[in-house]
């Protein structure tokens, strides 16, 4: 398990190093993406409101090509590394908030889950370098 994690980490790091050639637009200086709620290690009963925080950049609609702004994506239990040269996928584990939402009602089955935020540009590409939050782990009772 630990070995796999190490491989994952190194894969993620190699991809990050390639990010220089990424499609995405340049990220805002000192941009910080973070979870307002829940925090890492929180245990939650049932559904919850997940709240997204962003510093030094703005939130806008997908499709709006404004400088220094993007829209949120929430990655649930995603282990594959982010591909900076591809649009952020859209499926049941990659939730898109292209209308500029900054919170979402999340319902997950009981157990441990990981959450991570990724900021996307007008065309859903990650920024360059990617603006991502810490990957947090929560437990649903």
């Amino acid at each position: 398990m630990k070995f796999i994690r190490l491989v994952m980490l190194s894969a993620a790091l190699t991809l990050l190093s390639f990010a220089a050639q990424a499609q995405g637009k340049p990220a805002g200086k000192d941009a910080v993406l973070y979870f307002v709620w829940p925090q890492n290690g929180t245990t939650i009963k049932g559904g919850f409101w997940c709240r997204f925080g962003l510093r030094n950049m703005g939130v806008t609609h997908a499709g709006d090509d404004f400088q220094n702004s993007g829209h949120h994506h929430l990655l649930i239990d995603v282990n594959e590394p982010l591909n900076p040269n591809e649009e952020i996928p859209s499926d049941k584990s990659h939730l898109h908030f292209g209308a500029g939402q900054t919170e979402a009602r999340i319902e997950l089955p009981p157990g441990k889950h990981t959450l991570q935020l990724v900021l996307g540009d007008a065309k859903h590409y990650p920024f360059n370098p990617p603006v991502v939050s810490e990957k947090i782990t929560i437990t649903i009772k």
Partner: protein
Amino acid sequence: MRCGIVIQQNMVGRNASLPKHHWIEYRIGVNLGDVIIEADDIYGDGVNIATRLEGIAEPGEVYISGGIYEQIKHKLVCGYESLGDRKVKNITDPVRVYRVLPDAAAYSRTRKRRETLLISLLSLALLVIAGGALWYLLGQPSIRVADRAPAPSQTQPNPAATQAVPPPQTAPPAAPATQQAAPNVQPVAPTAPQAVPKQEPAVPGQPAEPKSGVASAPVSPATPGAPRASAVREPEMLPLRGGTFVMGSNDEASEKPVHQVTIKPFAISKYPTTVREWNECAAAKACTFTAAGKDDAPVTNVSWSDARQFVGWLAAATQKPYRLPSEAEWEYAARGGTQSKYWWGDQLQPGMANCKNCADVATAEQPVKVGSFKPNPFGLYDMGGGIDQWVEDCWHKTYQGAPSDGSPWGAGDCSSHVIRSGSWRNDATYVRPASRNSYDTNVRYPTHGFRVALSP
């Protein structure tokens, strides 16, 4: 009683995949009363009434007695339909019977049935009254109408009445009535510039003038209309017979509960809408952007609102009721009469659909052109995989309360709408005809497209 509902719902799920003569349908009766339990049998009043209730229940239904109803009416949230007091065999007093309506769909069905009954009764009563009133009015004042006939302004409101009941009134104002019949046609013809002569027939002795206006009016809009309709390339549509099918699956929470839906006949496009078709709309300035890509590739990067714009334009240009399919219609069409996990069976097979890690076209330029994979049993292409497809329905997290008549489900979270089919970037679980997902209504994404439907 909750147990009874669950049993019945599970039986619907089980029967779904079987032909009708293999179905098992339970009738369930529930009663509250004394039960005598012995080693090899149970009996007593409580059991007897429950048995009788079971006897009068319809297959697949749960009937409960008045006693149970009084206990649970405010506790278990579902609908109940009172069937009144029923006399049952070997029980002295009549038993009050309620039918359980487990979900909102059944509840609204029953309510609708009651409403239609009430409305039809009401309208019947109204009709009788109206008929009586008309008979009274027409029987008596025919003399008075004859008096008024010479005054031309008064005859103006007559045409409506003459259409409904011709005999008594047409006789006195015969001359103006024939003239009025002609201009009456005018509002039907769109953009008729000769709307002015409307008042002229009131002046008798000028029949030629309005008649020529009427003759020219229908012709002029028809001539530009006909070539315009033929200029628009219509998508290849496949008419589908209506039918009842079982929608949803137990694979994902959003696909539950599995429920029966009856679809009315409709037509759906054989392929997803292509770049070529889209760009005709863009050329007509009815769609907001020109799509890039090969002509026979599906159009992508469209939001739900974009898709609605396209069908709106197509409907107007062809004068046919083109629209987006409802979610139920989409799944009905995608299943192609099958009840398996995929339309070709329960196992994933290579080359059947364009999805991540399940097609041989991983290296090809995506999205590949429409119709590159096998059609489903209805002859429809790309119903699963390829591109995600918008449908008319607003997003609902589950099918709790979904309509059972195949109509689009509007109320709910309409800031996002349902997407179906899964794309080349999703794995095989998204290719299942039951798979459903949602996306923001006004946001474009590079794997999202659509196909069109047509009401008969």
